[in-house]
């Protein structure tokens, strides 16, 4: 099947939907999603969206910008962080105008609460900046954006899995997708393509990420010579439900919850005297690991307790009702009474497809754009999160940069014509599908994936050291070889999810390889990248972004400078 649209957007989470709304009637737009749009993982975000509205106390976007830069351990591009935090305010109002049911203050304004790493007066103390709707803020954002898309008659292609990007003479001209219902291959011709495919957390064993988060967009871009920026920075959220990885929002701590070790000690007092339990996530995750290593995990095991029992039932039921529901369902406990067993869970890729502040994909250290190609949201790296993202900033990222990408795409499609499709545009996608369906090597997708997730969790996790990362890289290479010999039982065309899982595993393997290689090369500790063999941040040699390419002979690493406009790097303490 063949389609033609001015713009094709892949991914129907916050970034993709927000971009689609910005394009409005300015061109014909198709939004592809491998799920139904309302299943996208934006809906799992809990605690809030950060914006310096100042509804409960004084706040300035400059403070938010500073926090974002410092939170990112100065790897954040400051030109982008300025845009993020300035435009956060108007995009939050815009969501409210579209009907987002925020919680309210006593005087009817959007309610705000404290969140990790968000401070007033450049680090003086915690500030109420997270705009929230109980602990289901992401759900409300996703629903609100989808509602507006329904209102604006945005054309969706639900349950289409992207397989390939089409490039002709250096210009992106469309993509190829697999219709999950029928197994048909579809070509979409387009003047511009936006990837908004979300995260890649499924490369790790314990993760808060949905099964769908397999880095589809980044991996496909990578296969066309686009580098991946800063993949070594992967956020481990400190409070996932032990063993399951299900997220327990930072809002629990924003509302006053505290972390306790096996001695009942509020150990964050030792790691972060000012912000305590509301220190940024990288710091809290490391603290939890160090407590466990020192034998102070609960019962000497690999978890600590998150205690919200002193907040009272009313606060728990009003402010974190879904958390209470998860605890009841999966643990059989009541957070108004019992402590929650938590451990770090793989949560968010700071890195991804390199873009400028208008979502244009950049190919190299000279910031050369690939015309017609855009990325936004978690799959992109602007970079506003630097080496460690602050809580609430992912939701800001998707609406601010989804909107900006939409605006620039509108300009681009007005100024440019369609580029002819390359000959045999579907051949690469068809070959991949046919090869996977007919391969008979006997290897199992589930086994390879399980081994990948285990080695990434153990060897490229919260703390890292050279021999372990080296071993992980070698292991990933072995798994890539085995991947060539997988066999599937389902050879059918209708809703063949076994085939899709195989395709997704191929994406994860490539991205894991680059993650391990980028981490191995960076000989310093910064933000979420914490090396036991290089425990200090090294601005002299490493205040720069990684660009990882996949070449015929392996991984090639290049580097590009960080934008520093207002805040010179300083030691990072909280």
């Amino acid at each position, binding site marked *: 099947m063949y389609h033609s649209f001015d713009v094709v957007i892949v991914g129907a989470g916050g970034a993709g939907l927000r971009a689609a709304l910005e394009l409005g009637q300015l061109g014909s737009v198709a939004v592809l999603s491998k799920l139904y749009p309302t299943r996208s993982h934006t809906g799992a975000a809990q605690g809030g969206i950060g914006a310096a509205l100042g509804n409960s106390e004084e706040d300035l976007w400059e403070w938010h910008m500073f926090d974002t830069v410092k939170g990112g351990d100065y790897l954040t591009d400051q030109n982008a962080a300025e845009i993020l935090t300035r435009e956060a305010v108007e995009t939050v109002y815009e969501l409210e105008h579209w009907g987002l049911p925020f919680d309210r203050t006593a005087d009817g304004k959007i309610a705000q609460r404290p969140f990790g790493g968000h401070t007033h007066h450049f680090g003086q103390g915690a500030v109420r900046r997270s705009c929230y709707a109980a602990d289901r803020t992401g759900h409300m954002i996703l629903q609100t954006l989808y509602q507006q898309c329904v209102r604006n008659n945005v054309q969706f292609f639900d349950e289409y899995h992207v397989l390939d990007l089409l490039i002709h003479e250096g210009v992106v001209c469309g993509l190829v997708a697999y219709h999950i219902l029928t197994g048909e291959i579809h070509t979409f011709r387009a003047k511009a393509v936006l990837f908004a495919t979300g995260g890649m957390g499924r490369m790790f064993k314990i993760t808060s990420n949905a099964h769908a988060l397999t880095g589809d967009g980044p991996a496909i871009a990578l296969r066309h010579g686009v580098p991946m920026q800063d993949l070594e920075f992967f956020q481990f959220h400190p409070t996932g439900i032990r063993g399951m990885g299900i997220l327990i929002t930072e809002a629990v701590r924003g509302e006053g919850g505290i972390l306790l070790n096996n001695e009942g000690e509020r150990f964050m007092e030792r790691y972060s005297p000012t912000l305590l339990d509301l220190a940024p996530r990288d710091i809290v995750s490391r603290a939890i690991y160090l407590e466990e290593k020192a034998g102070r995990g609960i019962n000497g095991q690999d978890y600590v307790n998150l205690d919200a029992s002193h907040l009272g039932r009313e606060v728990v039921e009003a402010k974190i009702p879904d958390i209470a529901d998860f605890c009841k369902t999966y643990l059989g406990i009541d957070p108004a009474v019992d402590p929650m067993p938590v451990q770090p869970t793989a949560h968010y890729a700071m890195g991804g497809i390199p873009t400028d502040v208008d979502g244009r994909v950049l190919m190299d250290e000279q910031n050369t754009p690939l015309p017609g190609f855009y990325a936004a949201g978690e799959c992109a790296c602007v970079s506003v999160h630097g080496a460690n993202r602050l809580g609430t900033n992912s939701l800001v990222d998707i609406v601010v940069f989804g909107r900006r990408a939409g605006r620039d795409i509108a300009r681009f499609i007005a100024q440019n014509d369609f580029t002819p499709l390359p000959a045999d545009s579907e051949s690469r996608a068809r070959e991949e599908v046919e090869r996977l369906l007919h391969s008979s090597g006997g290897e199992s997708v589930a086994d390879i994936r399980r081994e990948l997730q285990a080695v990434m969790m153990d060897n490229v996790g919260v703390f890292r050291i050279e021999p372990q990362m080296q071993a992980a890289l070698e292991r990933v290479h072995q798994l890539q070889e085995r991947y060539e010999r997988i066999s599937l039982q389902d050879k059918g065309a209708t809703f063949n999810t*076994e085939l899709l899982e195989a395709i997704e595993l191929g994406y994860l393997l490539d991205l894991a390889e680059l993650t391990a290689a980028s981490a191995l090369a960076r000989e310093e500790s910064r933000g979420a990248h914490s090396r036991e063999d290089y425990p200090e941040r090294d601005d002299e040699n490493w205040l720069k972004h990684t660009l990882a390419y996949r070449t015929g002979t392996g991984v090639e690493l290049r580097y590009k400078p960080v934008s520093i406009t207002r805040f010179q790097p300083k030691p990072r303490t909280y």
Partner: protein
Amino acid sequence: MQVTLKIQRFNPEVDDKPHWKEYTVDVERTDRLLDALHQVKWHQDGTLAFRRSCAHGVCGSDAMTINSVNRLACKVLMADLGSRVTIEPLRGFPIIKDLVVDMEPFFDKYRSIKPYLINYDPPPPAERYQDAEDRARIDDTTKCILCGACTSSCPSFWGNPEYVGPAAIVQAHRFIFDSRDQGANERLEILNDRNGVWRCRTIFNCVGACPREIDVTRAIGEVKKLLLFNRMV
């Protein structure tokens, strides 16, 4: 513990009609049913088809009929299901393959009730104000994740697939009772249709089916009352 999963299978490429197939899995009591389904798919029978994504009850992908009750496979633990579990696709929707049903008719009905804020006034430079009490009025119905468990559990819907169904009414309620919305009359007109709210016979199946614990029948009742006594201006 060992559990037998009795799963309704249907592959339109080879089967004339659905049939049952049994699988034995070894699971922990704290495993989700979704984990057990993955065990089958990943280690026994790769052809089994079902939808899933978030795996913790917020995305709404994996609603199915489990021991005759509509639930999310990721939100029910094996300890609560016994040693023999019967799993069927959601009732009332066309089956695509195995546990995957066609959700298009469901989303068509959702779209039919104008599921978006309607407000004809120009927005203020900052947020519109809303009292906390007004916000509380829509707290329950804004939780809906469109999983389809309620609509598919409704005997009135089984009897008449044209019935708009509880999920669409919940979504309409979310806007009708939002103090910022001005589209109540437009939606009430749609719901006053012969296939609208009056098809609800207060059977309450939807309330038991909702994984978000929304009081669906109450929401429908509030819409009915508004239609009968107190048409909004």
